[in-house]
């Protein structure tokens, strides 16, 4: 008996050892990705952070002289005479527009994406693959080309205006380009798959008999959707919303092409500081602000969602 116990405990020791080795090894497996993240994300972020606390060079670049002027300028601007301090209206306007358009993009992609994802997830399996494949087709061509195609549709002499005038709906071309609506349209189109794919993934795992249980227990269609479908699709909704919101907030190409200067978003503003305005510290400060804004929104979003789920329980 005693010998048996010893051998059993030595076996379990052996197992524990093997386990710990396995964990160590699997950590090693993730090393390349971790390195890439360090070099690709954390490194540049550090550079940006340092940059934002330096002074701008005359023709771009930075002078190694510490200062917080850049941070000051993200929110305030010098008055015309140089003595009065005002809020930097242009920056705040662009900030606000970016957040607003990004939230709207999330709403629009959710409104369009949920029925789509539901439709796909309820098809027989072989059909599902085809539909998912179709959803990803836009990814095959360059974002710039797709955005320019939208531009071609909505610009002053574009397809829609020409058609509308030819039919006789309108006399004058409508101003669609360089509006927030145009940016919203473009972004909703570009980021729709980012909403549909995670939604589909969570709806596909659904046990549809739960819906029958809901109907059986006196829930109407809306109640089944609100009380069963939505909570169960929760993870997909969170993932899709985060993907779309973060992508929208940092989007550069689409707002640049469809929004122009009139409906510029924050990425354009940052780009502008690094190029034409040749103010790298301000660009860096703005970029870090953008990052912080994204982080804050994410935390709030996840918090409310978790609270709601806890509430349901």
């Amino acid at each position, binding site marked *: 008996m005693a010998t048996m116990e010893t051998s059993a405990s030595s076996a379990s020791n052996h197992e524990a050892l093997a386990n710990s080795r396995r964990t160590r090894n699997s950590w090693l497996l993730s090393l390349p990705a971790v390195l890439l993240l360090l070099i690709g994300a954390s490194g540049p972020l550090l550079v940006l952070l340092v940059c934002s606390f330096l002074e701008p060079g005359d023709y771009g670049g930075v002078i190694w002289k510490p200062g917080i002027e850049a941070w000051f300028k993200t929110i305030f601007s010098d008055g015309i005479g140089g003595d009065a301090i005002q809020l930097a209206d242009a920056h705040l306007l662009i900030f606000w527009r970016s957040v607003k358009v990004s939230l709207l993009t999330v709403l629009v992609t959710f409104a369009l994406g949920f029925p789509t994802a539901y439709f796909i997830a309820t098809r027989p399996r072989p059909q599902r693959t085809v539909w998912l494949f179709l959803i990803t087709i836009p990814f095959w061509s360059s974002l710039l080309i797709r955005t320019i195609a939208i531009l071609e549709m909505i610009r002053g002499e574009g397809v829609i205006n020409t058609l509308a005038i030819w039919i006789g709906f309108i006399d004058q071309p409508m101003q669609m380009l360089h509006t927030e609506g145009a940016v919203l349209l473009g972004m909703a189109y570009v980021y729709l798959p980012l909403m549909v794919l995670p939604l589909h993934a969570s709806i596909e795992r659904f046990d549809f*008999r739960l819906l029958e249980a809901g109907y059986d227990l*006196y829930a109407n269609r809306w109640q089944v959707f609100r009380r069963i479908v939505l909570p*169960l699709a929760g993870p997909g909704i969170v993932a899709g919303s985060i993907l779309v919101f973060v992508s929208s907030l940092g989007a550069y190409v689409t707002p640049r092409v469809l929004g122009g200067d009139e409906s510029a978003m924050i990425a354009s503003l940052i780009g502008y500081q690094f190029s034409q305005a040749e103010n790298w510290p301000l660009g860096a400060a703005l970029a870090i602000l953008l990052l912080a804004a994204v982080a804050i929104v994410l935390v709030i979003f996840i918090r409310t969602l978790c609270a709601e789920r806890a509430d349901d*329980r």
Partner: protein
Amino acid sequence: MAGKQPATAIEARGISKVFGSGQNETRALDDVSMQIRPNEFFTLLGPSGCGKTTLLRMVAGFEVPNSGAVFLGDEDITGTPPNRRPVNTVFQNHALFPHLSVARNVAFGLEMLGKPRKEISDTVARMLALVRMEQFANQATNQISKSQKLRVALARALAPRPEALLLDEPLIALDHKLRKEMQLELKRLQAETGIAFVFATQDQQEALTMSDRIAVMNAGHMIQIGSPEDIYSRPSGRFVASFIGESNFFEGTVQSVKGDVADIRMPSGHIVTARLGAAKPEGSVTFAVRPEHVRLEQFGVAGTMPAKVTQAVYSGTDTHCHLELDGGERLVARLQNAASGGPAYDKGMRAGVRFDEGAAHVLAD
């Protein structure tokens, strides 16, 4: 049961349902009727694919019949959606809501009915006590065992106090011991709540022990409805006689009829007296004898049919003796084992076969 017939809780009248079309057309239900009394444990019994689940789904409102009607009391509810029928279902996989706690699952139906908060919490507490799950109220549904899930599903479906509770093979996922335990539990719940239970199963033993009445179904047809005793000892036909318990079947021709019994001559020449029931008393007929009603005696005893034991299978309480009559008919006798152990008959032995009085029963088909 004597006196006036109580009103029906649920009635299905001439229900037919066809799934698919053209080549793939399958007739799931063919002119099926049943009447379920209030406060009765009614079991739909049949092999898988016999239509019992479809029939339950029709009562619940998930399927609409191609023809026929479903009544709740006197009200025609054939076209009423499930959420407006005071009938609840316990699903085969229990279908508990994974995002809600045990208590919130039980509260769901009451919340949807818009009951006041106080009433909901009182009813939920009462229901959880009824199924003995009080201490699990705040657990997540993935933290409890299979039989506990079934208890929660029962509480959830009973909480709104439906006119009838539909149970779609809810015990199928449980192992033998838990199954026995939950059978008793279901019986107790039915008695305590006084709600009509409509229970679908393919397990004949389950049906016999739990039910007030059993409806035997096969291939979309309602074969026989009756008390467990009716179904077992007076099966209407070959299907019921073989699906519920085991039966020996014999061919024969009617020799003479006396009241509701007939003398039947078997091809081997033996004459057997059999109950007629609803069968027509003429020509060639089939009659059935349960293995436990077959007696073995010494070979050559007067009034017995000479036979040979071809196989003896020991199974604890009983021994199954496979026999061949001298005329060629084969049959099985189930003999209770004596306290002293071993089977009294073994392969190759000769014996005299006799049927218990009233054991032979002529089938209608």
